[in-house]
């Protein structure tokens, strides 16, 4: 379990990183390395050049801008987990982050790395899909933007340009009204790759009526998917209404089968978790949400 030989650079600017990536078709970005390093060790990935982006100051940090809440690609998951800005402005991501790996892996793993890897069970990718975050790349001199539904193509497969460098993920700001979020996942061990995961966000008006409802399912198929539960708008989000909406919305859900969990299990688990996530979101909103 020693990696095949490779070169390594650790530039301090985005321009240098892009030059390095453009210089070698088999170059790869490395950030926290929590997924890539084991893949290198097992020789499942064999890049000839690793471009370490963790020393690029522009890629680290969380800030509020006109566009939304911007999270630099090389921001550590552990930092995002304790960010007040994320907690108050992106409550769904805040609820997803404790499920990402374990404390030691979050200490090195980055928000951008989790997105770029494109694992269908990645919690950050699911939150980005539910909230329709914008994924920003720099490719040479060019800035590119992707929405999750066009970015995630298949298991560990994304629409990222081969020589591009993920720079930031921009999450929409917290909507007006009483916002609640819920995140649920199931795996055979805590924080393992989930068999199914669900993220939900609802907005209630002052009277307690649903004015917006979002849902996404991860881990069960090739990519995290946003699920249309717009039918819940205008309801009181009773358990029965949620159950009915979830059952209808998940009818055509595509699921995979593997050693650890059957497709039929994943399908039922997804429905159960979707229900639980929306109930959690509703209760969260009723309780005042993750109020700013």
């Amino acid at each position, binding site marked *: *379990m*020693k990696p*095949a*030989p490779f070169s390594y650079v650790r530039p301090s600017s985005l321009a240098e990183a892009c030059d390095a990536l453009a210089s070698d078709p088999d170059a790869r970005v490395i950030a926290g390395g929590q997924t890539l390093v*084991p893949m290198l060790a*097992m*020789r499942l990935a064999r890049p000839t050049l690793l471009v370490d982006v963790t020393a690029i100051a522009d890629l680290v940090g969380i800030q509020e801008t006109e566009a939304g809440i911007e999270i630099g690609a090389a921001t550590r998951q552990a930092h995002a987990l304790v960010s007040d800005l994320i907690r108050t402005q992106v409550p769904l991501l805040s609820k997803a982050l404790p499920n990402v790996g374990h404390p030691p892996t979050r200490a090195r793993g980055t928000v951008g790395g989790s997105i770029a890897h494109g694992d269908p069970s990645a919690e950050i990718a699911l939150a980005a899909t539910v909230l329709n975050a914008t994924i920003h790349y720099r490719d040479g001199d060019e800035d590119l933007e992707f929405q999750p539904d066009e970015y995630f193509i298949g298991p560990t497969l994304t629409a990222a340009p081969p020589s591009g460098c993920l720079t930031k993920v921009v999450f929409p700001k917290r909507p007006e009204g009483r916002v609640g979020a819920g995140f649920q996942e*199931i*795996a*055979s*061990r*805590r*924080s*393992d*790759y989930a*068999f199914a995961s669900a993220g939900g966000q609802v907005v209630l008006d002052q009277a307690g009526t649903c004015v917006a409802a979002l849902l996404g399912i991860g881990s069960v198929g090739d990519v995290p998917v946003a699920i249309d539960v717009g039918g819940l708008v205008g309801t009181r989000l009773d358990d029965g209404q949620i159950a009915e909406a979830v059952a209808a919305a998940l009818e055509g859900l595509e699921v995979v089968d593997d*050693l*650890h*969990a*059957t497709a*039929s*299990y*994943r399908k*039922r*688990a997804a*429905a*159960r*978790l979707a229900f639980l996530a929306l109930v959690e979101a509703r209760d969260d909103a009723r309780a005042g949400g993750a109020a700013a």
Partner: protein
Amino acid sequence: MNQQNNRFISGNRRVREDRRFVVGKGKFVADIDIPDMAHVALVAAQYPAAKILNIDPTAALAMEGVVAVLTGDELAAAVNPLMNGLDTPNVKRFPLAVGQNRYAGEWVAAVVAETRALAEDAAEKVVVDVERLAFITDAEAALEPSSPPCHPEHGSNLLLDRTFDWGPVEEDFARSEEKLSLRVTWGRNSTVPIETFGVICKWDPWSEILDVWASIQMPKYADQIARSLKIPGNAVRVHYDVDVGGSYGVKRGIKHTVLCGYLARKLGRPIRLIEDRLENMRAGDAHGPERIFDIDVAFDRDGTVRSMKIRALDNAGAYAGRAPFQLGKPIGAIVGPYQIASVQYRAMSVTTNKTVQEAVRGFGQSPTNYAIETMMDRVADHLGMDRIELRRRNFIRYDQFPYEIPSGSSYDSGDYHTVVDKVLAQANYEDIVAERDRLRAEGLCAGIGIAACLEPSGGNSSFEPLLNENNRTSTWMEGSRVNIDALGEVTVAIHTTSSGQGHETLAATVVGEVLGIDPDRIRVIRPDSLGSLPGNSPVGSRMAIMLGGAAAGAARNLRKQIVAIASHAMGIDPSVARYEDGAVLAPDGRSVGWDEVVDIAHRRFHDLPPDTNPGLTASFIQQVPTGVALPKDGRVQMYPCYSFEFHVVLLSFDPVLARPEIRRYVIGHDCGTVINPHIVKGMTLGGIAHGIGAALLEEFVYDGEGQLMTQSFLDYLMPSSHEVPEVEIVHHCTPSPLTEFGQKGSGESGYLGAPAAISGAIHDAVRPWGVQLDKLPIRMSAVSDAIAAAQEKGNLPNDH
């Protein structure tokens, strides 16, 4: 834990090994640096079975830093095949595949280079031309005469098929009021130490000695290396002062060591092979039993279980090794803790194109206990009887010991009813039942699991002559030596490596007890194998009994010498002298102290009794208690001592998500006199964690192409600290009449009953749907899918 007036034994005393491990100062194989060492990486077979047409090392050898490439043909021409326990001479095994490979991942060639990284780079450049052969992975299919044989020279895949009839089985079946049949399957799992296997071999041509530093837990290790390498036994020097980072059976390392020993001699350089996780999991000694049990049981309506017929079919993997013996050891406790009058046992072992099965904690006992306990649950279910009541009704009673079971083993002692009473009382069993019912009322699946089982301990190898008539082994000893030096300090020598069992604490404690001196003052050393007394290493839950017995025996001999010297000095007969805390007292009140005896022994030959050797040293070689006879008529005394454990577990899960949460775990444990309570507690807790893995998570799985799907911890799932609950341990002590202090073994405790208990709890939880999950591990999706299928058929939970 302690029924005698022992001073140090059973005391709340520190485990002396812990200090160096906690601060990271253990000395493991990977910490040993020998100048000029070269490193090995392996070329692994791609297919489960393939004829090797050609191996081309040219490109690898052309790389800078590459020293050599070794093929199976070259190695097989120079060494003897590895030891095979059964009488199957045509099932030959070498460290590298010869002619054909027999499982995916099998080592086809070894690459030696200046660094391990270079060796791995070069291993990729070795070109192996093969012709694929038919393969087989399923044990049932391997029984078919038409199945593709793993060893064509052997003629079939059948390694072993022996049927034992102990007692009037057919009569008992005919007499019984009820019968039922069941099939349960133990999935291929193992123990997975954090340290993979590692070895360094260094050949010195001027002294003609092969020095070996290895991460081993292996009986007869040095002998097997010498035999295979065709060098004298006293040309192999194994260094036992190497810490082993976990084992529980799987640190065998024979093939690794023969490979490195050959390379060290051939290349004239020290050779190191430390498996990486991939090599370990697919081609090391990493896999344990994989077994199908078919059981018929005959019983009466009052719950009396009269007889059983068990067919155990084991999937040994590609070679014989010692794996088939794991069907033999459980014969020593084939009726568990129950008075079952007769048993038929058919032990079958087949080869398949999977990784070779090796020894794992319990040596086949945990799968057998799982089968017996599942059977007891089914019988209770069939009769509508309480599961604990059924067990109590069949338990051997306290006043029946020693109790000879149908297969010929005599159980030494036990008090099963009392342990169960204690557990139920201390755990507030009614509360557990109430909690289960409360959880069910909340809409969760909730169940209680029960398991009672034995841990045969004090390992001998009676299963070898039982399953192979050409094997005449009845000796299975362990030796120890105790010295008192000229300054009066005590040193105990133990002659094995340890993989976390705390043997240094064990030896110091028992010697301190016998000599009446503080164990912390006693030094424990590990001479190399050429300076060692004979022994058989820590297998078969034996060292508390065997090393404990050997060290205590040596200390007793030494005490006799001290008494003789002091008595001579006082002019009294030794028989009237009394030994107390290192001093010898005469009836008239005079005494001779420790320092005086040491001075006489080491410096004053003129004061020694006649015909007395100078110095103070004693050895003792302990044979396994009761180990006096070879098998007769298919019956034999297996291990001498029998520890008992009783598990109660409560778990619950959502009927759809089905992830079990263990809410209570209580174990009653009786291993006789406990020598060190911290060590026994650690064994038990670790054993339960291990059992949770076997029950729910861990399995080496092969796909339809014969490829191992679970090659890393990504897919071979072990319980983490999140999945292992708090465990409550209820102690009881029924001393063994056969051992020095009444001690029995505990190295397998917890693991031997936990899989059965957890499986039982899951069945109790899904009983409302009439679901049976007959294969371990019981995966979450299997539970959820079974419930969903039952619901679709209209089986609604009826007692929720």
